[in-house]
């Protein structure tokens, strides 16, 4: 049953446009007439002289001013001599659609089509379709004009300096944001439709003279080969593009900031923008790039470097501090000086649970707080997290469920990992730290070292579209260190000499596609 329904839907998309207006309008009414926002309008062209015509549009997606002023008015009120029989021409030579689009319509973007598949896609995209009786061609007139969210500040990537605009859900607006920044003929923007049911428009943006053509081809082929029902957000494509489905580490970067996306284009990377998603995808993406914030480049070189160092320190603290606490208090206290050891012992005196339990409970509590704070309305979010912190912090310490040292550890850990600019990368490390913490509980400092080694081995085996994930550390590229932790001054950074190589790295043995 379901298959036959899909089959019939598929057949409808293949159906050719009829030459009879009635047939066309009937077909459209049958297909979409059940929706209240689908509108149908029949009229006569050429002040009642010309053939009959009809328009179909979706109320809410179209700009009705354009429809009334630039389409209906000229069609209905203006005279087009060939359609009025003047001058004399063989009626069979007259293509009404061509004549209308050439002489009557005052709209810039007009396309023609003979299949209902294109017609439906256009109508659902905000275009108005014009059928003319006697013509088996339909006109698709751009009347897109839905209400969209205005350009606002980025929510997830705020910074002190730099532009404050962010992507929104409109594909065209987002591409425009990039166009405004890169006024170069090499700026290419390819469009494709992905999603069997959603027909989501996806834009592939790159600079022709900087992009790696093999990587571009790989991305394009991968996108075109995607068969999925729906693409609601760019995250769907992100997961499908990445070869390693089980990796917690993102191999593709996502950003809300047009400035960041523009900079990525200038580096020779590819930006993918998905309609209805405010997050653009940037690839390839290596680990180091996700530790860099847009603001690093807007401050001076020493300041930018300092901020990066702070971020790295935050990352190190966030990753290792809980594990170190567990290792030093449970397995290897002899590493500490006696004073420190006794202070730690005194703070833990009376706490009923082992250090690992303490750490896990508090870490999970912080994760709960973080997750809850993203769901709560802004009005009460701050108050709720404050109360949560107070309850968890003060009350738990006073009840001797956790030690006071633990509060400091957890706070520093949370703050440290939140300094990572890329949210998903921060999440990945928040997950990875549990591995290190559990290893520390089992084997102390040896466990921490082993867990970290395992992580590094794993990361060194990853590739993002041919690029080793741990570049420029492994493989070691000294030239790239100017923009790694150090942010060299602008007079030293020369983008033209550091772009993608034309030959990407060969893929690993066990995976030949996507992000690996």
């Amino acid at each position, binding site marked *: 049953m379901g298959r036959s329904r899909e089959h019939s839907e598929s057949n409808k998309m293949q159906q050719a446009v009829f030459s009879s207006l009635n047939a066309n309008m009937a077909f459209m009414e049958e297909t979409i007439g059940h929706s209240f926002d689908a509108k149908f309008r029949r009229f006569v062209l050429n002040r009642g002289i010309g053939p009959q015509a009809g328009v179909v549009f979706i109320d809410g997606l179209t700009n009705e001013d354009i429809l009334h002023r630039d389409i209906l008015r000229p069609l209905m009120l203006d005279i087009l001599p060939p359609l009025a029989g003047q001058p004399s021409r063989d009626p069979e030579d007259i293509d009404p659609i061509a004549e209308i689009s050439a002489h009557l319509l005052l709209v810039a973007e007009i396309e023609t089509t003979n299949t209902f598949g294109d017609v439906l896609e256009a109508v659902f995209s905000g275009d108005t379709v014009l059928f003319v009786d006697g013509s088996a061609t339909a006109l698709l007139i751009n009347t897109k004009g839905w209400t969209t969210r205005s350009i606002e500040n980025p929510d997830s990537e705020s910074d002190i300096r730099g532009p404050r605009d962010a992507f929104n859900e409109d594909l065209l607006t987002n591409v425009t944001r990039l166009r405004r920044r890169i006024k170069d003929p090499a700026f290419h923007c390819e469009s494709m439709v992905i999603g069997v049911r959603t027909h989501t428009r996806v834009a592939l943006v790159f600079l022709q003279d900087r992009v790696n053509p093999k990587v571009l081809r790989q991305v394009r082929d991968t996108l075109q080969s995607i068969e999925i029902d729906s693409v609601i957000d760019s995250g769907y494509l992100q997961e499908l593009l990445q070869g390693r489905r089980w990796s917690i580490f993102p191999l593709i970067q996502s950003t809300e900031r047009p400035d960041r996306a523009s900079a990525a284009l200038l580096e020779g990377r590819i930006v993918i923008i998905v309609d209805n998603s405010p997050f653009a995808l940037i690839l390839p993406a290596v680990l180091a790039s996700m530790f860099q914030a847009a603001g690093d480049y807007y401050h001076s070189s020493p300041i930018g470097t300092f901020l990066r160092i702070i971020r790295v320190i935050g990352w190190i603290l966030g990753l290792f501090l809980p594990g170190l606490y567990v290792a030093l208090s*449970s397995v290897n206290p002899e590493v500490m000086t006696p004073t420190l050891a*006794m202070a730690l012992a*005194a703070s833990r005196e009376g706490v009923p649970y082992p250090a690992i339990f303490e750490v896990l409970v508090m870490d999970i509590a912080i994760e709960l707080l973080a997750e809850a704070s993203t769901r709560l309305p802004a009005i009460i979010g701050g108050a709720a997290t404050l109360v949560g912190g107070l309850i968890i912090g003060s009350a738990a310490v006073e009840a001797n469920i956790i030690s006071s040292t633990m509060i400091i550890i957890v706070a520093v850990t949370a703050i440290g990992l939140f300094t990572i600019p890329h949210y998903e990368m921060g999440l990945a490390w928040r997950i990875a730290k549990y591995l290190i913490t559990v290893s520390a509980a089992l084997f102390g400092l040896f466990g921490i070292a082993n867990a970290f080694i395992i992580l590094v081995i794993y990361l060194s085996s990853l590739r993002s579209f041919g690029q080793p994930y741990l570049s420029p550390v492994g493989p070691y590229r000294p030239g790239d260190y100017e923009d790694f932790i150090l942010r060299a001054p602008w007079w030293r950074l020369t983008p033209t000499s550091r772009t993608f190589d034309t030959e990407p790295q060969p893929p690993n043995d066990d995976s030949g596609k996507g992000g690996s």
Partner: protein
Amino acid sequence: MKRLCLLILIFICVASVFGLMGCWDAREIDRRAFIFAMGIDLEAGGLYRISAIAINGGSQQSSGGGAVAAARGNAVAAASASASLGASASAATTGDTAPKVPVLVAHGRTIAESMEALVSISARIIDLGNLRSIILGETLSRQGVNDVVRAVLADPRTPADVILFQAQGSAEAIIRSEPNGEEHLQAWLDHYRTKSILDTPAQYFVPAWQFRSHLINPGQDAYLGAITLITRPENDASGAGENMSDNDTDTTTSQPQPQPQPTLGGIAVFKGDRLRGFLNEEQTTAFSWMSGKAGGRVVVSSPKAPNQLTTIRVTAMRHELTVSNHKSAAPVLNVKLRVTGAVNSANSLPELASLTAAQVKKQVAATASILQTDFSADLLGFGELARRAAPFDWQPDTWEKQWTKASWNIFVDVSIQTFGRF
């Protein structure tokens, strides 16, 4: 599906391995008792007695009366532990003289047995990772310490940089002593050690590895810093109290008396692995000068004004030790010292310098004589120097004979600087 099952199977195997491991080395820090200092004595029956300062988080938390209560609590816990294989537990139990921190005592026929007994009598897990000092009792040292040192250091739990001390008398008495103003003996030792090198001769703090090297390596004999217990009456301003070194560890005396205070007053001289005797403070200072370490003072008076004493602080020392005629039966041991002294004010620096040189030479010669004649101990390593000069001919037995007949050639050069206001 197959792959998923395989993954699940692997996960279960790995998880069960980790789950069954039991975290053998995981012991919560608040469940541990940290041994900071340890004393080893040899009793009359040949049993070893180990006494240890055991501090835990609970005793750290409490202070004042709370600390005493905690100490008593631990003492009771220690006393109630069962005795096995000659191990027994004892702790200070007198009300007024209860120690600020708990002291555990265990016995055994060997050091290893004593250590295990210590572990078994403690209510908490014994942690030796922060052991800082080991004090050897006098009776034990006079009979030989080689086995003890080897047994203690062979234990991987014991830190390699632990400091050894020689007690004048019983090590346990020193462990139980309560230095004024400090929480426990080890705190006192730590503060003492971190003082400037000019105030405290480094010879007082001999790491166990160095002592062991001197025991094993031919050509140099060993020494340790000596700790003595001294009782200073309240009206005694001289600082010289009654030496408590002969006192036993019996703390159940009924008459209240001032608490004996530990003092670092010299070094203990070993010949082979047996204690021969002690150098007093002045002799130790001279010995440290011969070793090239600055520190200490020289008090001189001019013949023209014998009642006017001047104190010169030794602020820098360069030494040169050589052996001449090392193949003869009576080699010559050359000691060349270049001393830099400091004085706040002085009238005649050259005269002061020559007086100081004479005094230093006198002290050094006296100490050298004691080492050579009384103890027959080559603490400075002249034997090693002779070996380096003739590595293929030198023999330890021959050197022993040469050492007793060697003569000394001491040369001292002093320069004095003034740092005073006038």
